[in-house]
């Protein structure tokens, strides 16, 4: 029975299962080739570099599940990154307030996206292309020049291991308490991602609103006929997307101790988020997949780039190789079309 269940799960989540396997293989290989592989230091460094793209990819997942694309996720990340660089400092209470303000402004921007898409009846891709430019404009207004002032202790504590976190803030005997030993080597960024995934994404997926998001992407007509709250689900999806992108922006500010309204960076993050979503097994047609898949997809993209550092490959070849790897990975999803019996269905 158990084997049967596992088999069915794999059959129903081929894309995600493939991505998980690929990530596993890549991570093991990478650590085996790395001179200091399987060490806490390597894990901390890698996970720090992956957090922002993971959050942005999770943000992108929601519009994609609806059957659309959000071209503003990178820009929202940049905007919130700039906001955070201004407000996350001072006393602990002030820092907390700053972090909440950052997340709220990202969510508000997502809400705006959702309202434009639902009430303006504009396709997500073009609506968010416009609002993405607005977000960059706002980011430049907040922070015309790169820089910022993020609390150093916070930055250190959240970008290292659990031990360092406890050490910085002096709880659990500065990290030496017996109960924290088993977790002491885990990088904090991994913990942050895991908490957001568990506390935000999984409950959302199991709510009626989340269920409706999947139903809309799969068959909007059937969702409507079943009496599901379509507008509410779309607006919530974009708002949650904004929130997740803001998580990315906030972390980036904490990690770099600064904000930077970098247009190129915003664009690159948006495009990479789409790649990560597809790699993670979410269908661009909508209706199947999930943010956990995108998390895995984003990590795959990052690990591939880590390889270039240890393999001594000409940096000029990097985009070429990345392109081929991505193409190969996404081709797996195209096998579906070989089973279609009515060729007209391919165009529907």
């Amino acid at each position: 029975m158990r084997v049967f269940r596992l088999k069915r799960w794999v059959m129903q989540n081929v894309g995600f299962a493939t991505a998980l396997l690929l990530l596993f293989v890549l991570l093991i290989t990478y650590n085996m080739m790395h001179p200091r592989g399987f060490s806490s230091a390597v894990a901390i460094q890698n996970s720090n570099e992956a957090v922002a793209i993971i959050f942005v990819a999770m943000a992108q997942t929601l519009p994609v599940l609806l059957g659309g694309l959000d071209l503003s996720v990178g820009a929202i990340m940049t905007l919130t990154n700039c906001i955070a660089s201004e407000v996350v400092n001072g006393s602990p209470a002030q820092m907390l307030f700053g972090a909440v303000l950052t997340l709220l402004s990202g969510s508000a921007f997502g809400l705006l996206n959702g309202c434009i898409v639902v009430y303006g009846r504009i396709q997500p891709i073009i609506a968010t292309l416009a609002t993405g430019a607005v977000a960059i404009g706002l980011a430049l207004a907040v922070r015309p020049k790169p820089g910022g002032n993020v609390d150093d202790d916070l930055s250190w504590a959240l970008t290292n291991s659990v031990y360092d976190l406890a050490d910085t803030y002096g709880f659990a005997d500065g990290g030496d308490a017996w109960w924290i030993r088993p977790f002491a080597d885990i990088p904090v960024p991994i913990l942050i991602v895991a908490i957001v995934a568990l506390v935000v994404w999984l409950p959302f997926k199991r709510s009626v609103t989340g269920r409706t998001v999947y139903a809309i992407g799969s068959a909007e007509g059937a969702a409507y006929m079943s009496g599901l709250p379509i507008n509410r689900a779309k607006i919530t999806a974009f708002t949650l997307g904004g929130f997740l992108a803001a998580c990315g922006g906030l972390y980036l500010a904490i990690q770099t101790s600064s904000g930077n309204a970098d247009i190129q960076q915003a664009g690159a993050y948006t495009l990479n988020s789409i790649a990560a979503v597809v790699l993670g097994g979410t269908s661009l047609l909508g209706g199947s997949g999930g943010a956990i898949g995108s998390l895995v997809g984003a990590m795959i993209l990052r690990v591939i780039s880590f390889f270039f550092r240890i393999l001594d490959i000409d940096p000029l070849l990097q985009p070429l190789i990345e392109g081929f790897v991505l193409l190969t990975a996404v081709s797996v999803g195209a096998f579906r079309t070989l089973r279609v019996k009515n060729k007209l269905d391919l165009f529907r």
Partner: protein
Amino acid sequence: MSDASLVEPIVEYRGVSKFFSGIRALEKVDFACRPGTIHAILGENGAGKSTLMKIMAGVLKPDAGDVRVSGDAVQFPTPQSACDAGIVCMFQELSLVPDLSVADNICISDPPRRFGLIDRRQQVRRAEELLARVRCEDVDPNSLVRELSLSRRQMVEIAKALGRDPKVLILDEATSALTSRDVQTVYDLLAELKAQGVASLFISHRMHEVDALCDTLSVFRNGQHIETFAKGTKSERDIVRLMIGRDVETQFPEKPLVSSASDAGEAILEVSGLKWGRRLNGIDLTVRRGEIVGLGGLDGQGQKELLLALFGVLRDVDGSVRIGDRKGIPASPAAAKSAVTRMALVPEDRKTEGLMLGMSIADNLLSSSYAQISSGPFIDPTKARDAVAEGIAKLQIKVGAPDDAVMTLSGGNQQKVVIAKWLMIDPDIILLNDPTRGIDVGTKQEIYKLMRDLANEGKAILFYSSDYAELIGCCDRVSVLYGGRVVSEQVGDAITEESLVSASLNIDTEGA
């Protein structure tokens, strides 16, 4: 019946009318259905049955008149509000979400919740209970709907409807894909609901089902409610007559006198044992040059799939096909139109498959015939202009300028563009999929005449229409399809409305 008619109706229509862009779908319909009955709605294609149901289910709003539920006038803005009032509808097009699991779908509008989140275990249990009620214990609640066969999906749909505690249950062709065992289950279930005082409205094209199941019958024709009567008060033959009615005859071009097989031209299209999935179950058919062959039967008996299969759209088609001197089915529409024996298909939905609505009339007209108007890789502007002018003149398409977008034309003229576009490749075989649907009478008659002219030029025409009058008026022969098979072939004067309707329902009126 006398008892039932004393009961207050649960749903009542008073003078309900509905128009779609000026065309009447329902006109001044008075209709009532009472609790504890199983009420059959009968009528030909386009009689207004589906519109009637969609108004009840909150999908459409009536243009005039009112709908009363338990005596109160209501207006349902959304399907959800109708559902809240206890009116649950199962539509012909399935309303299941393919990427969600069976349990998700069954509980979709009101899933069991714990702490505000969907309780999956509870949900699976509820799905299992409902599936057990429809005797589908073999369906795993955790499998995705897209993995199920069509008949299983219909049973899931029934379980979903049951889960909503209906007072009025609408079954629109809900049994069309079911196996006989499932049909029996549905029968038992409906009888059970009837005993509980639920009103079931049953749309089916299978007379024997209606006979076995329903206690009250209502006949609709051309958007009007003709009559409601208790089962057993009328013979099948009378019912068929009520469904056809006495309509004003449309003018059809004269058929050639010779219609016996020996006088007709060579057989250019021969189909035998054509099979595709569950929809085509062994079609045998021959079409000769100079002949118009009709495809009759009710909607969804495989007519559309047959035309698509012949045009190379479907994959994995079995059976033998001969087109001209070539054996086999073309690999794609592109191959079908450029073979030695050229074939053209006027598709079902002109807005998505027939035309590129935003492009100009000229571009649409040329879109199938670039081979004919190009010199090398380039389109020859002179040839193109001549071809467009010829196409417009030949079908008398009323256009402002050929460069206008095709969506600015009326429905009839749009359809003429589709036909003209295919005539440009000078096809030998023309497949027509309901070409007169939703267009005005005048244009219809022009199309009938054009079809006859083309046949007289020696082209072979295979013509599906959901309108029996058209089949009678236009065709030299009609093959009636039922369940993906040709069940009856009628020639010349033997084609009558009565014989077509009887054959469509797969009943024998002579014996009745």
